[in-house]
């Protein structure tokens, strides 16, 4: 085998049932499938068929780093895992990304990734050190909270190990359980923590002393300089009076709190994660430090939704396009007023008035700590479960429900009681809510417990009261994210039709890796009828392909794409691997990865147009802050255009043989044809 740069060259197949490890050359999959999610998609297509459920031993967690991981290419420290998600409704193939130092450590230990299959007979953790993989008893770890587990592993194997672990939520198969690494970075959205739990797998700990060799160290350094631009300056620890996003929800911290900014992953050139020091713990008197990013801020207070900056939040010009990673540490600076479009782009409005809960700094800290320590997806708790209880209580839907304690999302005691009840599946409701919001609400009766209208949402743009269902659900058992209503509602229709289209085509929340970006010049053309413009579909396709690239190369949604440096990811890939790669070639690999994903959901879960349009449409019938919705006709027109642009069949939403073949996936077309899932032409 030729020497591979960037990659370590080996993927480990780890079977928990018979405790065997076999090695697969990474070159079986690269460069064709890039790395990361691209490789995961190929492995899953080859190895897991339609009959497998999320908690079956036959489900696999396919974990992959990218060729940039541990090379020093900024943001390359992120890694990704895929498998059947228990938190998706229905259970479907899904993915989840994670930051931290674990991915780099796995590579230093000699692996590009691993395929975890089977089920351990008893609680187990994996210890990976320099090419050696051991199956160790997790009896003394089982039951432990996330940080206690990390600490115990460091106690056993030394301070310089890096781990991914689950907490009690994963052990108890709570469907939205997360997997956490040492800096509180999580793979949460797909509930893979529960898949670990179902496999009796508590943790994976890695330690490596090997080397990762980028093809060009010089190019790596050049990328470090260019990607950090315009910033490399002191960032001190500061004391803040309190915490909130925008002018609303301000939660005062008595005596102030200490705040700093830290990197999310190995080798990153940014520091977009917020470190909150000496915070109140949910479990002990001692203060704790938390790493927080975007959604956690709403734990501290949720009277109002995020403010709206104007179309310029999504649609950018060369003068005004700020990397998202500069937003949380507030390093973006104010928009450039010399931009000729400045007035149209930036038109600040406050978010919807929601009145879910009053600001309370300590309670916010406790909510985040509960999620961090139990290992639960914060989104589901902060923007779904708790708002649901808040809205539902005001609308009287819980009058007959006895949770064993009065529902009161303003109370720290209640929130602790609630999470404990769910994580440990205590009683009927604990058990029910551990099945995840989408399933629990269906069991209770969706009409009453999901679709009841909350009377307390007011647009601060128009002043009107606007309908909002008490359950902020969108497609595939996920909660809304940047979709024009519910959480992060403050975006206009030209942007939210795009984010909803992203979500429709996927199996989970896509806005963690595919925040929608487009050019302002396109906004001007498409804004009056976004569903009838090919520009909307084209921007979604660009965003979807970039998401595949980011999760494969790997790089970060907060730094890419840069619409004015479109071959950034190709340069990263080439610097790591030495494979000469243009933006167009990388895009081709992304199309291939997206097609494999599409083929998996078509083959395994019967995905077609009917299914996906019906899954996404309902949420868009509720108004956005301007009172806008889409009609069935409008939406279907957009879907027609999108399928057309993709070269997929309009009636079924299935890619054609010609499309599969164009991207080197003739074998996929053959298999789909055999089961009647290839369109006629």
């Amino acid at each position, binding site marked *: 085998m030729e020497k591979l740069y960037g990659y370590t060259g080996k993927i480990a197949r780890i079977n928990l049932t018979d405790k065997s490890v076999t090695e697969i050359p990474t070159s079986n999959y690269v460069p064709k499938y890039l790395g990361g999610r691209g490789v995961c998609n190929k492995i899953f297509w080859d190895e897991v068929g339609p009959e497998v459920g999320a908690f079956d031993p036959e489900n696999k967690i396919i974990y992959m780093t990218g060729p940039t991981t541990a090379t020093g290419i900024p943001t390359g420290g992120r890694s990704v895992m895929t498998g059947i998600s228990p938190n998706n409704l229905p259970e479907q193939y899904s993915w989840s990304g994670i930051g931290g130092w674990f991915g780099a450590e796995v590579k230093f230990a000699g692996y590009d990734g691993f395929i975890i299959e089977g089920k351990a007979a008893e609680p187990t953790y994996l210890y990976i050190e320099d090419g050696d993989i051991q199956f160790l008893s997790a009896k003394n770890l089982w039951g432990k909270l996330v940080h206690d587990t990390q600490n115990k592993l460091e106690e056993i194997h030394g301070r310089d190990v890096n781990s991914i672990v689950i907490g009690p939520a994963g052990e108890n198969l709570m469907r939205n359980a997360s997997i956490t690494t040492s*800096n509180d970075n999580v793979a949460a959205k797909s509930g893979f923590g529960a898949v670990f739990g179902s496999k009796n797998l508590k943790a994976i700990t890695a330690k490596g002393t090997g080397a990762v*060799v980028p093809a060009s160290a010089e190019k790596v*350094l050049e990328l470090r300089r260019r990607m950090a631009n315009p*910033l490399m300056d002191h*960032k001190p620890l500061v004391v803040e009076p309190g915490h909130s996003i925008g002018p609303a929800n301000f939660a005062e911290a008595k005596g102030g709190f200490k705040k700093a900014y*830290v*990197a999310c992953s190995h*080798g990153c050139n940014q520091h977009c994660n917020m470190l909150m020091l000496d915070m109140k713990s949910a479990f002990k008197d001692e203060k704790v430090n938390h790493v927080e990013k975007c959604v956690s801020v709403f734990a501290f207070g949720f009277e109002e939704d995020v403010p709206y900056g104007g179309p310029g939040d999504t649609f950018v010009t060369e003068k005004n396009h700020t990397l998202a990673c500069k937003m949380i540490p507030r390093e973006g600076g104010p928009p450039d007023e010399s931009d000729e479009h400045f007035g149209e782009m930036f038109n600040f409005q406050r978010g919807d008035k929601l009145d879910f809960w009053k600001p309370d700094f300590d309670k916010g800290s406790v909510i985040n700590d509960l999620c961090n320590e139990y290992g639960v997806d914060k989104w589901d708790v902060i923007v779904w479960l708790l708002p649901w209880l808040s809205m539902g209580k005001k609308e009287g839907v819980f009058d007959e429900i006895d949770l064993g304690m009065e529902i009161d999302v303003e109370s720290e005691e209640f929130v602790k009681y609630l999470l404990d009840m769910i994580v440990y599946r205590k009683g009927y409701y604990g058990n029910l809510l551990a099945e995840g919001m989408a399933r629990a609400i269906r069991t209770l009766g969706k009409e009453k417990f999901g679709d009841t209208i909350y009377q307390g949402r007011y647009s601060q743009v128009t002043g009107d009261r606007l309908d909002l269902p008490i359950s902020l659900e969108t497609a595939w058992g996920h909660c809304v994210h940047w979709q024009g209503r519910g959480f992060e509602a403050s975006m206009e229709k030209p942007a939210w039709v795009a984010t909803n289209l992203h979500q429709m085509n996927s199996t989970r929340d896509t806005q963690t890796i595919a925040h929608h970006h487009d050019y302002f010049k396109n906004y001007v053309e498409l804004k009056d009828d976004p569903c009838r413009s090919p520009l909307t579909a084209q921007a979604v396709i660009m965003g979807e392909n970039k998401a595949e690239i980011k999760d494969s190369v790997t790089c970060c949604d907060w730094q890419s794409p840069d619409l004015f440096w479109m071959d950034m990811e190709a340069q990263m890939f080439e610097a790591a691997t030495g494979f000469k790669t243009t933006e167009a070639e990388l895009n081709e690999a992304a199309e291939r990865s997206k097609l494999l994903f599409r083929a998996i959901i078509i083959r395994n879960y019967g995905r077609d147009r009917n299914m996906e349009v019906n899954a996404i449409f309902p949420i868009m019938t509720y108004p956005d802050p301007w009172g806008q919705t889409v009609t069935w006709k409008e939406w279907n027109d957009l879907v027609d255009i999108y399928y057309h642009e993709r070269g997929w069949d309009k009636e079924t939403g299935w890619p054609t043989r010609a499309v599969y073949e164009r991207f080197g996936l003739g074998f996929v077309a053959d298999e789909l044809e055999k089961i009647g899932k290839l369109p006629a032409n």
Partner: protein
Amino acid sequence: MNNNLNNESENGLGRHVIQYPDDISFCAGCSACEIVCGLVHEGVSSPSVKRIFLERGEKQSLQHAVLTCQHCDDHPCYEKCPKQDLAMCIDEKGIVYINQDECIGCGLCAKACKFEPSRINFNKKTEKTKRKAYKCDLCRTRENGPACIEYCQVKCIGLSDWPMPEKA
């Protein structure tokens, strides 16, 4: 010990990389300093060749200490090297550095370093004949000076004889 002493103190230390206090700049924990150190010297990224050590805070505190060689005036590492002035050398500016070609991988320098943990990277797991010691040479042959400082995203490290940056 943390190396946040600058050369204004009476400390018997040479010119070295220091970490600034938190209220000047808070280490983001990115590891870039460790990575670029290996990249500029060996063209690889590896825990085994870094010459600057990010000691991660205990219990996920995310408060990290950056540990480096102090280029001590008395340099016991140099004194213990059996191939003194061939492998372990001191240049005209007092920089204590290792000439990798001559290093025989005995590990005596790493043991002799007066700091705990040792500021010399010596991986005993490497095959015996391939073992080498790695230590900070302040990037003495690099035009832009220390790479770790150049690439630190938050500029929380600097040289000990630079004036301490102003607080924000």
